[in-house]
């Protein structure tokens, strides 16, 4: 892999490591930390640790559904023309 492919691949790895670390600290480490520690200011309230992935999953489903719809519609249109 060279150039752009390499960069994109490494970017994906880095992003997923970052996301994993942040989310793990948010869900597993924070409940054991005193509520007046300064680290809590870097994280939203813990309810959002479930709501935000839920919203992300909905957006993903929306994108997948839209893509399927567009492809189906284009296919139907081209079939009608033929």
């Amino acid at each position, binding site marked *: *892999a*060279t150039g752009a*492919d*390499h960069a*994109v*691949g*490494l*970017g*994906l*790895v880095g*992003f*997923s*490591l970052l*996301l*994993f670390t942040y*989310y*793990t600290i948010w*869900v*597993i480490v924070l*409940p*054991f930390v005193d509520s007046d520690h300064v680290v809590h200011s870097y994280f939203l309230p*813990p309810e959002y*640790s*479930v709501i935000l*992935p*839920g919203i992300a*999953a909905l957006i993903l489903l929306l994108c997948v559904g839209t893509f399927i719809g567009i492809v189906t519609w284009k296919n139907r249109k081209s079939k009608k023309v033929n």
Partner: protein
Amino acid sequence: MTSSLCVCIASSELAQSLPVSFTMTKLLEWLFAVSLVGVAWGLVTFDLLDFQFPAVYREVAWPMPVYLLVVFGCYSLATVGYRVATFNDCEEAARELQGQIQEAKEDLKKKGLKI
């Protein structure tokens, strides 16, 4: 790979009844394991048996399903990204192939095929 599971009723009065056997498929194994984990999670999160755990246990346990999904998503993303980054390109072979495709296209166009 399936394994036959033979359930024989051990008590003396029911010994005359036939042993019941069913094949444990992978799906059944997974469903069984998932339901065990699900019941354990439900017990801790909703305190169904009134264990009265310390509040920390509940706080850590209740996002667990979403957390495991996110972790699985991160792992998938990292695996895909890593394999894209370390993919074994063969640039010379790619150029050769492109040249052959052009050759084939021109040849077919000459013979009348519309591309």
